């Protein structure tokens, strides 16, 4: 599978993150989105006329929406991540996948504006993002009352992976996460998953590693 990828794109990171969590190897093809605008070049438009990334190709199949790519990877390699245990769980996953698009269009656009100088009405974008973050906070706090740490139940699904990047990176767009304690705990639960990988703007959960003791003499000598 080839992923047309951009290191700073939260939507591409969705795909890289799920692949890492389920152990799926992807061939990454770096697209010079910024500053090169390569996603709008003829070869890329031939692949995806919408001019967006990520794009995933696999043996003739071309997928251009990150949530669809998540669905494909999970169905292909790790169906439990689809969250299809019950009718309700399946619908909740679908609901959060749609919600993830609202995050892209609000928090994601605010970040692109503040960081990469993309055009946009920043006050309106932050207003929409705040509304979305408040909805997420309310839903996650309701989940906590039922002993659920994730969006569609007590285990992570593609819904969590779809929503996580733009939420975790919201401060990049001038949207502090200070007011959202349940979001903070949910992000922590995702960052603590086996196989979790970061993207720039999301730090390693250093608490998972023990405090290093005194350095062995042999290493110390090598470094000197």
């Amino acid at each position: 599978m080839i992923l047309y990828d951009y290191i700073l794109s939260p939507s591409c990171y969705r795909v890289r993150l799920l692949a890492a969590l389920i152990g799926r190897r992807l061939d990454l093809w770096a697209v010079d989105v910024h500053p090169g605008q390569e996603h709008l070049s003829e070869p890329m438009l031939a692949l995806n006329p919408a001019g967006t990334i990520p794009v995933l190709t696999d043996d003739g199949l071309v997928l251009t929406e990150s949530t669809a790519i998540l669905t494909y990877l999970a169905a292909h390699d790790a169906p439990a991540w689809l969250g299809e245990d019950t009718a309700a769980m399946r619908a909740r996953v679908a609901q959060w996948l749609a919600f993830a698009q609202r995050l892209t269009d609000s928090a994601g656009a605010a970040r692109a504006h503040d960081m990469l100088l993309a055009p946009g009405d920043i006050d309106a974008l932050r207003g929409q993002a705040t509304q979305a973050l408040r909805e997420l906070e309310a839903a996650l706090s309701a989940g906590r009352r039922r002993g659920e740490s994730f969006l569609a139940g007590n285990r992570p699904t593609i819904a969590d992976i779809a929503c996580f990047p733009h939420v975790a990176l919201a401060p990049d767009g001038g949207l502090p996460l200070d007011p959202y304690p349940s979001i903070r705990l949910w992000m922590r639960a995702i960052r603590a998953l086996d196989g979790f990988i970061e993207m720039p703007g999301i730090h390693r959960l250093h608490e998972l590693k023990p405090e290093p003791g005194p350095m062995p003499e042999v290493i110390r000598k090598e470094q000197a």
Partner: protein
Amino acid sequence: MSEGGAMRDQWYPVGMTKQLTAQGRDTMLMGEPIRVALAGGAPSVTDGTGRALPVIDRFGHVWTSLGQPEKDLFTIPEVDQPGRRLVDVGVCRVRCSPLRAVENFLDIAHFPFVHTDILGSEPHTEVARYEVEIRDDVDEVWATKVKFFQPQAAKSAEGGITTDYMYRVCAPTCSVLYKTCPPKPGEWDVIALFVQPLTETLCDVWPYMALYDDDAEMTDLIHFQQMIFVQDRSVLENQLPALLPLDPGREIPTRADMTSIAYRRWLKRHGFTYGAQLVAA
């Protein structure tokens, strides 16, 4: 003295040359609106009143000044060496003091915590003694004999190595680092950070590189540097106070911070205080 003090007479990057258009781009320099455009095939910069500002086209970027620079813009001789690939990394905006952006660039001790498993990793956190001087002949801050253990020092690096660094501050908001070049022993890769001060607490950062790397795709080189810089961004936006304190006492340096100490001293000596805090509030 007008807003900006002695820093008004310095050169600043305001755009990438190859992104210029005839209709131009509105941006800011030290709180003042400016327009950067292509006029008759050459870069031009005008201020809010339409006055033409001085222009230099160098290192793939357009440079200007609101004041009257006494000196030419610094040079980076390595850029002209044959065989180097020149990389325009593109802009990244940060809500921080332009001086804090430069100071972070001069710092190695944060590598294991902010660039984990790329430029540094625990337990290899020790910063060995290195040398720092303010070179009076060129009026630049230099740090040399800097060494740090890195798991993946560059796009072209395989596995961990101890990397040698040199740092150079050549203008109040510009720094150049030289680091071990894995494909070409004996040579240095050159990575520069050009910072455009929009205000005292907002800047556009334009990283730029001159590398010996024949194998990597250009896009991979760009993305590696973007990754590194954006990892720093969330730190830079969360330092208190936002302005860089130039007087001792507000922040506590150690021996690992010798470059930063020299940079702050050099800024203060020249009255380069746009983005700085002089007396602890």
